[in-house]
């Protein structure tokens, strides 16, 4: 129900404005802090008007934390995770919705259950696997005694090893599976009429052809939404990049921010830290602004 009265309008505008203010305030403080020098930023209370050193601080943060290569790393990482999720989730949902096979419900529930096991919960085993992708198979071989038999027979010790630490693959691969994305696609696929599938079959299109020619183009808006959300999510990841990249060359921008945070006995240069934060915030913002056009257009013009 839509009610229209002047008082209600004023009240709702006020609520909206308050909401906007509370969202923008922290950003304003970051931006203001990033524009002062060391002395002013540590005054109590901190001045609420911008100072003249904004650009100097940005440059300082950029060089001190070596943000250029880190942002490139972050973009590769976040884009890789987002694209991987968009594609793998589509493929998984395709299998769940359009095929009948033994154990399908098992797979479905297995995916569902991963919702309850976020990365933080399974960080140790995930790390172990990333350190050596083949370790589960090694364990199997060891357990069944095959390693021992082979060693007795040939003198060769089986030691499978494929490490992913300090690589883009290691950063991206463990994060590309997504239950949320799979469900998003699943719900969408379920709304498509069966006749569309049948028409494609009559036209002679096989399963993969149907997936690429019909399902993916129809899921464009889903993909844009999922991709955007997942890009921002991956960009903000802290724990996993920190664990996997011991080599500074593969660090991401977000983990690199800790280089800018003042040390216990260092100088309290919060202005540089804030400037760095602003820089790191920028790329996901650009992505959201750019992608927004896509999924809003998709939501307005629903073709079904």
């Amino acid at each position, binding site marked *: 129900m839509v009610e229209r009265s002047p008082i209600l309008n004023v009240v709702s505008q006020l609520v909206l404005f308050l909401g906007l203010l509370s969202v923008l305030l922290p950003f304003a403080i970051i931006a203001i802090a990033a524009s002062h020098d060391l002395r002013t930023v540590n005054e109590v209370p901190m001045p609420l008007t911008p100072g003249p050193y904004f650009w100097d601080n940005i440059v300082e943060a950029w060089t001190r934390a070596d943000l250029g290569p880190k942002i490139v790393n972050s973009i590769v990482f976040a884009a890789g995770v987002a694209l991987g999720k968009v594609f793998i989730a589509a493929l998984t949902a395709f299998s769940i919705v359009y095929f009948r096979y033994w154990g399908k419900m098992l797979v479905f529930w297995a995916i569902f259950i991963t919702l309850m096991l976020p990365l933080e919960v399974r960080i140790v085993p995930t790390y172990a696997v990333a350190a050596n992708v083949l370790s589960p198979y090694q364990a199997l071989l060891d357990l069944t005694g095959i390693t021992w038999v082979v060693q007795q027979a040939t003198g060769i010790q089986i030691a499978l090893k494929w490490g992913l630490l300090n690589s883009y693959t290691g950063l991206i691969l463990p994060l590309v599976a997504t239950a949320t994305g799979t469900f998003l696609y699943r719900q969408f696929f379920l709304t498509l009429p069966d006749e569309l599938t*049948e028409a494609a079959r009559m036209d002679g299109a096989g399963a993969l052809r149907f997936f690429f020619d019909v399902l993916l183009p129809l899921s464009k808006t889903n993909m844009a939404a999922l991709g955007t959300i997942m890009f921002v999510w991956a960009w903000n990841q802290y724990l996993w990049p920190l664990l996997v990249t011991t080599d500074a060359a593969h660090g991401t921008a977000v983990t690199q921010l800790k280089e800018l945070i003042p040390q216990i006995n260092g100088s309290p240069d919060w202005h540089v830290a804030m400037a760095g934060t602003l820089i790191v915030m920028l790329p996901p913002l650009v992505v959201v602004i750019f992608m927004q056009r896509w999924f809003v257009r998709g939501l307005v013009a629903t*073709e079904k």
Partner: protein
Amino acid sequence: MAEVQIRGVHKSYNKVPTVHGIDLTIAHGEFVVLLGPSGCGKSTLLRMIAGLEEITGGEIAIDGQVVNKLEPRERGCAMVFQNYALYPHMTVAENIGYALKVAGMRKAERRAKVRAVAQSLGLAEMLERKPGTLSGGQRQRVAIGRAMIREPKVFLFDEPLSNLDAKLRAQMRIEIRRLHQKLGATSVFVTHDQVEAMTLADRLVVLNQGRVEQIGTPTEVYRRPASRFVAGFIGAPAMNFMDGTMAKDGRIAIGAGNGIPVVIGVRPDEIKIVDAPLKGTLDFEIELVEELGTGQVLYGRSGALEMTVMRNANGGVLPKPGERLAVKIPMAAVHLFEVESGRRIDLPPTRLAAE
């Protein structure tokens, strides 16, 4: 063009049988309509021909080749769906040409074919538009174009007109019939609409609960319905049924009497309204009048019998509810059915003529 042979085809869903052995041969270039109420198995049968539904038992052969195990694309059928099932993200041209694209035809060749098909369906002006911007009739024409372009051996139509409004439906009906005359392809058309079925069919197959009730030309099926079900299903307003008896000498009486019990069927438009009650006329009390323009449908009763009478006149004094009329049932209009099986009882014509 191809002959389609359906031999003893059964279908069960989760062990529940829905189609109980259908035998039907569709000749080259014939237009066959499968007609029946919803759930009678007509769509299932069509989908089994198309290859969208597995065949539980029996055989289907197209052009002499058994197709039970073949994929839809290998059967040489094309299908037009009830909800059009156009690809919403493709233009009209892409929709029509998709089958050729999948088949790997080159672009220039494809475009020429699409243009030719679109031209014949009056779609040439809208090749670059998306289905979402088209009207229902135009969409259905695109769907037909998509089926035509593959030059299929068999055309399958799954209630393609039921989403259109009445006027458009009549128009599309004529277009489909015209198209069939031009292409001469074997066609199977599923519908629950008897007008559609009667007007389109070379041959009509009436189905009920997964069984064939009658196969014949529309005229045959209308004039000599093979069972009580067919008689009641075809013709509007529906046929009147009365319990009656048939004596040994072939004399038929409404109500209880000597002889074996039968069901007497008379079409409402064959009951004659006479000026005055005479011997052999029935007293009919009108309860409801439906104006059709060309005439009126009178619902009412004759004694305890419910009856529908068609008045084929649009002039004179209109009958009103509550009025009484004298009506006469000509013997030639009487259809007889067995009580138990519902099967038609054929009488020698001499008996029918006797009153």
